[in-house]
């Protein structure tokens, strides 16, 4: 089973309580599926950072993979993850005062 590392920042880290988790995944899964597996493991508070509670739509946050950072609401969730991939999750904190 391939292994994927999720490296967590900002609110993802606060809610998960850890900096990173390793997730076993079946071969050929997409990033979307990895997030589903992680949410199952980390619980509803984590899930609520990824999916809108009412509509079920993906919320806007940032995902980093293979050196690029992309918004969650683009096509990146459909990308197939490779064994050993590192996914970075960050939420889009506004401001900067």
């Amino acid at each position: 089973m391939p292994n994927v590392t999720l490296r967590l920042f900002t609110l993802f880290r606060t809610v998960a309580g850890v900096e990173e988790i390793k997730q076993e995944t079946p071969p050929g899964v997409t990033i979307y599926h990895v997030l589903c597996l992680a949410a199952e493991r980390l619980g509803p508070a984590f899930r609520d950072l990824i999916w809108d509670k009412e509509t079920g739509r993906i919320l806007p946050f940032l995902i980093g993979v293979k050196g690029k950072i992309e918004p969650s609401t683009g096509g990146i969730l459909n990308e197939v993850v490779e064994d050993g991939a590192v996914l970075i999750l960050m939420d889009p904190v506004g401001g900067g005062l």
Partner: protein
Amino acid sequence: MWIYGGYAGKFLRLDLTNKKHSTVQLTKEVARQFLGGNGFGVKILYDELKPGIDPLGPENKVVFAAGPIQGTMVPTAGRSGVFTKSPLTGYFFDSYAGGCFGPEMKYAGWDGIIVEGQSKTPVYVTVFDDKVEFKDASHLWGKNTFETQEILRKDLKEPNAQIACIGPAGEKLVRFACTIWGARAAGRGGSGAVLGSKKFKALVVRGTQDVEVPNIEEFQRVITDQIERIKANPGTGKALPSLGTPGVTTTQNQLGILGTRNWQTEVFEEVEKISGEAMRAKMVVRDRGCMACPIYCTKLSYVKAGPYAGTFDEGPEYETIFAYGSNCGVASLEMIAKADRMSDEYGLDTISTGAVISFAMECYEKGILSKEEVDGLDLRFGNETALLQLLEKIAKREGVGDLLAEGAARAAKKIGRGAEKYAVTIKGLENAGHSPRGLKGYSLGMITSTRGGSHQDGRPTGERIGKVDRKTLEGKPEYAIGTQRLTTIQDSMCVCRMTEGIYGLIDITNEHMNIINVVTGMGLKLPEIVDIADRIWNLERAFNCREGHRREHDVQAIRFMTEPIPEGPSKGMYCPPEELEMLKDKYYELRGWDKKTGIPTKETLSRLGLTEAIRDLYK
């Protein structure tokens, strides 16, 4: 209620030379055309200041102004602004802070307070509703901002008064000294120095009056809906309450756009040590909010151990973490908190102070400044002791601090020897903690702005979160104008940037319109509000053009135009001059500015009713 809801209908004028005060009536026309905040500031200063005056001379003025929503419970309506001709840039400058000062000014019955003239001796002024008194401040001169506020509250027996004051840095005319109320800083641009030049130590405000709206039931319905949406939004309801603005630090680094060692690079290898997550774990003892704000993004920090043990700080915010942290090569949150606290006490803008110190550090490391020239300090990046010592010298204008208190651009010019390319300034203002190289639209929004190196005109958020592609040029003039209109209206309303996630982060929206109308009863349509934003923006531009600003001054810092980011996810990105010129052409066309000079055209000024600007710029 005045003609429109939310307004007091009048300004207070303080003549420090003659120790007299008077009332200036707000007109319906000015309220409707300029709304409040920066609109009031630029209208007053454009009309009342002559071009070419010395910002630190007696002819300059400082305007404290709020908007119609301050004093109501509109979410984030605790903010207000300070407006003046900046001693750092020589241009119109606006600076804002949260807390409670703006609302208290409204409760005292004033939409704004104009400070003019120059006192021979230190003075402070009390404004208790309509009762205004000038008082001797010689016992306060030299005191830091916290001491000043404490003494005044005790002496005046007014524990709930709101006090805007300057610290020793303002008294010493440090060009980036700020105005402080509570622990909030109207940080940028040097308003503290302008007040210091007038020997004006503090403005004490206490009010007992109401701020009325035309339909309280409708107002409550709109506000309740706003609060619920703020709490439901992941950014304002979870991320900001949890980590505050420091949560941005790791995001910036992951994108490869965190200013490091005077912007030599944009990846900081020790970012984890200065992250919002680390701050929450190590130092945060309490969350705090401004008046009328449900977000509670401010973090109160306490340093429990180590060389800075005992430091209590309101903050540090992300900008300060960048300025004293990564950009100075420092990986200690505790030191950053100490520096932040010192800056608040002295009344220094943390962004400019950090940037000036990082400029000096690079000059030292590159041999442009010798150890003797920096008073024997070992001014290498990362030296915490040297950083704190230099901060104090700047505040007091001692030794090399006297040179650096002039700001990075002026200091670089005086040093020569190639130092100019290490002064990372735009229009004389030291760059804030966001990357023009890594955010193309933000870069354009910054160089075409009134203030220059500020992150509060063109905004970085839309590109940073991926709503707009940060690496491409297409659509960026439109993006820059949209974000500038947004910030202009936010600043005339004096609402917080944290509402971006709810009200919109790329342009003015119906949300802004609904709030303005439910408070004022003006019944404005969205195009009229866009016109207000354009009117304010163009009058600010006219102010600067009257001072000699032209197209050739709309440029990036030398480093950003000539040095690509050397590493990380944004490697290779920079701001080529030819790219900026191409973007400016399109931007000027959309704005209605002359392509050769950058001056708003007669047609643009006429459309916006700015006849005074036509008179001055087209003699």
